[in-house]
């Protein structure tokens, strides 16, 4: 039931400070605890000893908000398939285990403190075009747009991304193609997403490449994704991106204008 563990945790006082691992002995870990509850217990001990607690991001603790995420023994979100750090339970460890805990490591996700990183680069990708322009109030009846169940399912599969950043942390190139591909797929397969389809993929991919590394198909991202996003979304993104180069509506219109003037 109860385990004694050794934790090696990355501690870093601030963005520019040098970081290092600190080792903590954690007695009496209950197997029903979540990984974050185990960190809570460590933090209570640390505060009791007059040492500053380990900073880590977390919020909903039910695997959906995407706040939490640390690299556990070299793997983002730990050893299980399809779960976030908050949904990893200590019954997956044995008495006497040593666990190494690190923040996401990627140039686009600078460390803020300890295990907390800045993921606002993801927000900037969405801002570049990860939406359907639909001003409030102008929508027609929802049932006027028929969407085959299969299409809705593909969109939903891709839209399940929680934006945690594990894909970037797992990628040897720190690429964000799984995250970006998921959002592009979720919107580009839907009828509502068609008018902005080509502009969307071009803008989002360009913004992504400004900030992240390039994908070379390691597919480590899919292996660690807690939301089960398939690398197929990357293929979809790449195909749409390529097509967008030939379907730039603005340049087509400009050519038409030139033709009119002539």
């Amino acid at each position, binding site marked *: 039931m109860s385990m004694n563990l050794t934790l090696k945790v990355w501690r870093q006082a601030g963005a520019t400070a040098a970081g290092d691992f600190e080792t903590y002995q954690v007695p009496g870990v209950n197997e029903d*605890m979540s990984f974050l509850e185990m960190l809570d217990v460590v933090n209570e001990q640390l505060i009791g000893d007059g040492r500053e607690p380990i900073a880590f991001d977390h919020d909903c*603790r039910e695997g959906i908000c995407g706040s939490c995420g640390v690299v556990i023994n070299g793997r983002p979100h730990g050893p299980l398939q399809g779960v976030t750090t908050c949904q990893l339970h200590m019954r997956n460890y044995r008495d006497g285990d040593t666990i190494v805990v690190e923040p996401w490591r990627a140039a686009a996700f600078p460390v803020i403190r300890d295990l907390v990183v800045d993921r606002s680069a993801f927000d900037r990708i969405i801002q570049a075009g990860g939406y359907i322009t639909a001003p409030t109030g102008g929508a027609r009846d929802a049932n006027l747009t028929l969407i085959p169940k299969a299409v809705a399912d593909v969109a939903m599969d891709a839209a399940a991304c929680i934006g945690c950043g594990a894909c970037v942390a797992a990628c040897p190139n720190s690429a964000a193609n799984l995250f970006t591909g998921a959002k592009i797929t979720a919107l580009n397969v839907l009828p509502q997403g068609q008018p902005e389809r080509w502009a969307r993929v071009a803008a989002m991919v360009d913004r992504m490449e400004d900030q992240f590394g390039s994908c070379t198909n390691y597919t480590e991202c899919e292996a660690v994704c807690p939301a089960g996003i398939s690398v197929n979304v990357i293929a979809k993104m790449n195909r749409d991106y390529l097509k967008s180069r030939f379907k730039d509506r603005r340049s087509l219109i400009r050519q038409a204008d030139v033709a009119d003037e002539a």
Partner: protein
Amino acid sequence: MSQTQIAGDPALKSNIPAGPLAEKWDGHRFSTKLVAPQNRRRFQVIIVGTGLAGAAAAATLGEQGYAVKSFCFQDSPRRAHSIAAQGGINAAKNYKNDGDSVYRLFYDTIKGGDYRAREANVHRLAQVSTQIIDQCAAQGVPFAREYGGLLDNRSFGGAQVSRTFYARGQTGQQLELGAYQALSRQIELGTVTMYNRHEMLDLVLKDGRAVGIIVRDLVTGEISSHSAHAVVLATGGYSNVFYLSTGAKGCNVTAIWRAHKKGAYFANPCYTQIHPTCIPQSGDYQSKLTLMSESLRNDGRVWSATKQGESRRASEIPDSERDYFLERRYPAFANLVPRDVASRAAKLQVDQGFGVGELHNGVYLDFRDAIQRLGRTVVEQRYGNLFDMYANITGDDPYSVPMRIYPAPHYTMGGLWVDYNLMSNVPGLFVAGEANFSDHGANRLGASALMQGLADGYFVLPATLPGELANQLGTPVADPNGPEFRDAEQAVRDEVSKFLSINGKQTVDTFHRKLGKIMWENCGMARNAAGLKQAREDIVALREEFWSDVKVLGSGNTLNQSLEKAGRVADFIELGALMCQDALDREESCGGHFREEHQTPDGEALRDDDNYAYVAAWEYQGAGKLANLHKEALEFEYVHPSQRSYK
């Protein structure tokens, strides 16, 4: 008209428009002043919180051309706790042709709220519900579909029609992402300036008007002032006052509590919703409780043992020794009774010793019959992700062993008092979503929180807030370096220094747990006068202890999560005292507020409409002091209050 003769406080103007119920909203929209497009950018609007209400309001007001500043404490606006809502969103579309209508949704919500909500607000909510679905579908929210491509619906508690739209078990996530994406578009366009990882720590008033806020940058610790023509708080609910709840760890009352301390009235704080289907607690280290969607009650059957201290496994208990207590007590609604009714029924079974599981602290939610009837594949399609989540947390497989469930704090119907325009009694201060008290009365129906958040954000605020702004045309925003802001900033700095200098012996979480225990035991699912009086005294003592013995390490100039929590727990402690005062004052049972002294012979809530059909709006009088009560009388012109029956 209702039979009640309660004298409301004339100072509390609800501003409900005149005219027939169904015409109030359209009439009001027409008579509200507008701001011309070219003038909108001259108006600065602050919106705190980026859940459904906040993100939808920021996106819509930004799109209309106002200069919006949006604040959230999370690292991204997408992570607000609306994202965790599972089951669905109600709308009176009547796509199923099963008798639904705007009026029926209105009626169900008033009844579900145990006749403690305003008719006009609730009718407006039902009216705009249909537009919400259209809006979200246009944004690309991947709602569940029928094979023919039409939208699918499911049933939820408290209704006899199928009006709940959903996106697998992640409806909140998809609606939140829709609003976040609309917001992101406005951020890129420059109409909205986004402040991630910023926490509001005070509201600033000038000549009685809300003119801005003080925020702390959670990364650098910098404290700064932001001024505006109007401030919107869309900062969610306060169920973390119980420590263990289904809320996210960061959910807190600080923004609305600090506004309350500056003069905004807090309405019906004791109306808290305890959700019937959560995973029971497993140990002291527990940091939160996980909800299992209400949608599971569509196919799951709830039962407990018929023998006290039952220790056999579920599969070993024959049908004759199972008590399907919801089906037994409420044959008409059965497993789909509203949340307050289901929660109390489960508590009663456990209190009487019929609980199941090792700790006898839950009841079963059983899918055996559904799997036999529908097959495992269908059950998997409907609830697969929820079953996986359950298995992952408990180590049990719900396909073969029934789920164990128990009620947990989930939603707070109370919040800051607002008028029909969603403006508080402080001019210029608006409150939206769970943070206000407005639409759910004493109990919220399932799938109605998402509806209200988006109604407020997409449709109500964008129509009512300009009416307030129009009065200020030509008035510049308050000077953020003025004395009001300087003083408020200084007070926030002093508070930060105070937390860091106490250097006591107990951690912030220790205090939060102590508060949670007091609240759960005395102001939870069942309340009585003696317990509430004792709880209030205990909380006043806990407050003293907190301010002399809390231990917060580190500095105010870096990311310091203990410091953030300290401020929030300090506010929860004060709120706890007010909740107990409100619960003690309300000598009746209604919805989520169940006073043991006031029940029918068969244990149902017993309302007292003659004396308590009012909104209790509390005015802050100082730390540790009792608040002042202002009453807004509730009048029922259309739905005649009766004892709620789901039998």
